């Protein structure tokens, strides 16, 4: 028997955890309207919330949640972007424990994929993208 986790709890916990890792660098969900003024910042997007469902008419007959969120790093200096990605890897990859502070929840594992780095010539910002999957008892 499994409970369904509320996505808003994931969103709040991701925001808290990322902000905690890279403080004082600002962290935003989806978009930073002030991108032209800030030399470095993070955005994140949550996707793939899905608990597998099992047979029968009992709604709570489900498995665990393994949501994935994307972390996008932006920085005017390339080295800042790489160092921010290192902060996230060192803190989050393989992490097991409380996620999202006192109001968060326990995760059995966080698995980070460092995807690629890039540069946007119009924004004049270096970018690095990472995916993180968390394994949440439910």
């Amino acid at each position, binding site marked *: *028997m*499994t*409970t369904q986790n509320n996505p808003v709890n994931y969103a709040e916990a991701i925001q808290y955890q990322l902000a905690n890792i890279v403080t004082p660098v600002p962290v935003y969900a989806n978009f930073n309207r002030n991108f032209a003024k800030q030399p470095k910042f993070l955005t994140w997007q949550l996707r793939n919330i899905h608990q597998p469902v099992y047979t029968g008419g009992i709604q709570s007959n*489900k*498995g*665990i949640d*393994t949501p994935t969120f994307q972390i996008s790093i932006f920085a005017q200096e390339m080295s800042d972007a790489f160092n921010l990605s290192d902060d996230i890897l060192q803190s989050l990859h393989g992490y*097991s*424990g*409380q996620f999202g502070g006192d109001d968060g929840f*326990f995760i*059995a*594992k966080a698995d980070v994929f460092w995807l690629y780095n890039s540069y946007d010539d119009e924004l004049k910002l270096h970018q690095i993208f990472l995916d993180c999957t968390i*394994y*949440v*008892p*439910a």
Partner: protein
Amino acid sequence: MALINKVLPGYVATLWMQDAVDPTPLTDAQLSTWTAQVANIIGTEAGGAGTDGMFVPVEAIPAFGADDASAAYSVAGARTGAKITTQNQVTSMTITAAWNSADAALLQIRADGYSGSTIRTYTIAVYDGTDTVAYSFNARVGGLQWDMSPSAEGKFIFTIHPVGGNSYGWSTNT
């Protein structure tokens, strides 16, 4: 009993073992006793006390429990045959670990396999961040192999064979 009332990811499981070079394995009763027995083998990272145990860095915990067995017979004239469930041995666990030649736990397992006679208490801890459920058993190490396939990091593969009798037990923190 503080049982974990959740469905858990496989990632919550960790393997621990007594850390003494020449350990005294727990008795059958102690294998089901949390306080001062099983708790001491499990580290604080998994909700234990961690006073005389060490973490074994394995890739994944294989299926554990007891082997399946039954006695089957048929009766002339009866519509079906029949089975009687028999209690088989505690399951052996073939485990793969990423090989680090300086890791204390892997070196101890290598030494136990070389000895062939060391009986040690192993514990699988399942931890949800608050409570722990533990499955403990006494076992010897056999089947040491190193797999240096270039497609991945070097692997250390070994099998833990539980000793006979009732040498396993469940426990949980209270």
